[in-house]
């Protein structure tokens, strides 16, 4: 019996390896060793701090509206750990975690939220698409890229990241349907963080799980504890290996929680209470990993303090570097639309130029 059969969504069992108290479910194999676990913990801690800095920068007017990852770190770090160079990622807009896992510098990530398109220009060889704001519209695109790779015989996979809200959109259904028919090497990673702005998960679908929607489209779905780094890595690896060897797509539902607001323009106190949030605090992905590492003698207060200081320094530098990048010049907004500027754009740029003189 494989992982997908054991945790077939209609069996109603969520896949978990690491319990909230930091101990392990019996009989399950760890996907990574201590050294890697410590490194990924540090990565998750860094991401949380960088994300918090994003919230602060917005309040200071130095970031535009920002969508924080707070609480979903294990989903993105765990799945990102499995992807390989050459794979493609199609993010939604809450994806600082997977962005950094793909090797994009924090400085570049910040440039986008500071309002400079250059931040969406992934380095050559890093196949990370710009964010997708219209919810779910990137999901069929991930299928298209995966299918193109399959037609060309390239052994890459694509991963689309989206929330529970996106699974209500037609785009999601059209994408999964297409992927099932053409057996594309696509990982559909749903971060079920329980909220689409103010609308709770229970309002998005009457399905018991999101994972089971894959069954309707003819392929595997699995619901994992999205706050359990080990389970996320294991499930993603299974899905990615399968996809890369021609086995087609998988829908992974990571059950997690959005501790922060939808964006910095949102006030969650209007629609949820502390009492509703409290049960999720002990399930925090960093908290349980810390318990686990402490239990193995790998975590201490001194360690935490050291990595926090290092992180803040690195984040400070990224902010400094990003803010030192000059704004795009006004001609850029015209020259970058087409390969060759059209007469209309030339004329409009000349007009703008005349108003700036």
């Amino acid at each position, binding site marked *: 019996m494989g992982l997908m059969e054991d945790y077939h969504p209609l069996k109603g069992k969520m896949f978990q390896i690491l319990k909230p108290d930091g101990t392990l479910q019996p009989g399950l194999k760890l996907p990574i060793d201590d050294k890697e676990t410590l490194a990924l913990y540090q990565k998750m801690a860094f991401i949380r701090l960088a994300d918090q800095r994003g919230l602060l920068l917005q309040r200071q007017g130095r970031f535009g509206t920002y969508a924080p990852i707070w609480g979903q770190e294990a989903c993105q770090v765990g799945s990102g750990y499995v992807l390989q160079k050459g794979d493609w990622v199609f993010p939604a807009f809450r994806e600082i975690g997977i962005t950094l896992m793909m090797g994009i510098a924090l400085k570049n990530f910040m440039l986008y939220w500071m309002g400079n398109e250059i931040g969406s220009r992934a380095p050559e060889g890093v196949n990370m698409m710009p964010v997708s704001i*219209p919810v779910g*519209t990137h999901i*069929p695109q991930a299928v*298209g890229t995966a299918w*193109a790779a399959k037609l060309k015989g390239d052994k890459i996979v694509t991963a689309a990241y989206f929330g529970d809200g996106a699974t209500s959109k037609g*785009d999601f259904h059209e*994408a999964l349907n297409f992927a099932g028919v053409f057996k594309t090497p696509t990982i559909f990673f749903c971060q079920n963080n329980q909220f689409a702005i103010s609308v709770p998960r229970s309002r998005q679908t009457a399905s018991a799980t999101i994972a089971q929607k894959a069954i309707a489209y003819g392929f595997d779905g699995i619901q994992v504890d999205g706050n359990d780094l080990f389970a996320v890595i294991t499930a993603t690896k299974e899905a990615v290996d399968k996809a890369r060897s021609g086995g087609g797509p998988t829908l992974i539902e990571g059950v997690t929680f959005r501790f922060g607001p939808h964006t910095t323009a949102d006030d969650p106190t209007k629609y949820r209470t502390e009492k509703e949030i409290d049960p999720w605090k002990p399930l925090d992905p960093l908290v349980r990993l810390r318990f686990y590492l402490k239990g193995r003698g790998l975590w201490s207060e001194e360690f935490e303090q050291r990595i926090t200081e290092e992180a803040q320094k690195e984040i400070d530098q990224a902010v400094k570097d990003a803010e030192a990048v000059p704004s795009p010049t006004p001609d850029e*907004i015209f020259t*970058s639309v087409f390969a060759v500027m059209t*007469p209309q754009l030339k004329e409009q740029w000349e007009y703008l130029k005349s108003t700036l003189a």
Partner: protein
Amino acid sequence: MAKLNMVEAINLGLREEMERDDRIVILGEDVGREGGVFRVTDGLQQKFGEDRVVDTPLEELGIVGVAFGMAVYGIRPIAEIQFEGFLYPCLDQINNHIGRIRTRSRGRFTCPLVIRVPYGGGIHAPEHHSDSPEAILAHIPGIKVVIPSTPYEAKGLLLSSIRDPDPVIFMEPKRIYRAIREEVPEGDYTIPLGKARLVQEGKDVTVVAWGAMVREVLNATEQLKGDKIDLEVIDLRTISPMDVETIITSIRKTGRGVIVHEAPRTCGLAAEIIAQINEKALLSLQAPVERVTGFDIPVPLMKTEHYYLPNPKRIVMAVKKVMSF
């Protein structure tokens, strides 16, 4: 040289270009085994195989979203949307991603895809099979919109559209899919995008049209010869980016203009053309520019469709009106 209709000309263009460029993949509903409901892709799957001419599930948004994903990967997809009435779910992908990806990634990702879609009325079609959405598309930044008016034009413009590094919506006027037959060369020839065609020179009135309306204008031209009115006829070819220069040069010569489109009147492309004439050649005008257009109504079913579509009689009336100033 073979005389082909527009369906055959586009079919020939697709076949030759797919031979030339093995990155091209055609996808859409019924394009493969059936060869397209209008037979435009007839025989292509037999020749190039199921991996290059693909019958997709029934999902227009998905087709175009998937095509986008293929394009950024390096494939040259040609997505067919079966009728313009079904294009609207795709506007999300077109506006929000296809037209934006080059600029928002500062060139890191680009989208050289073509969306082919039959459009326009006059075939006594079911509902939702007769619209002309070119003005909606022209208003979207980052894409190009092309409309051929003859078989020869169709192949040349199609090849340019496929080779363009940016996204092109190729709208095929279904009313004249089979109505015109003319010599269409085999082999490589292109007609540049962004350049209008001077169909015939004339000294009295500039008439601008595109798609199936060009033929209506030429019919009007015949009727007006008796009145000794000499029309200069411009076939726009590329809706966006429009060849404004050709229109202005003509208006400066004739001083009188008539624009013809079957799309609804309000905010139709004639309004944009007249705005351009206003900016660049107002003082050359001898009369206000006239528009002969569809109405702000859904295209009616066949019993009353003929009231909707611009016809040579209305074009003649408009020409005589501008001549009366």
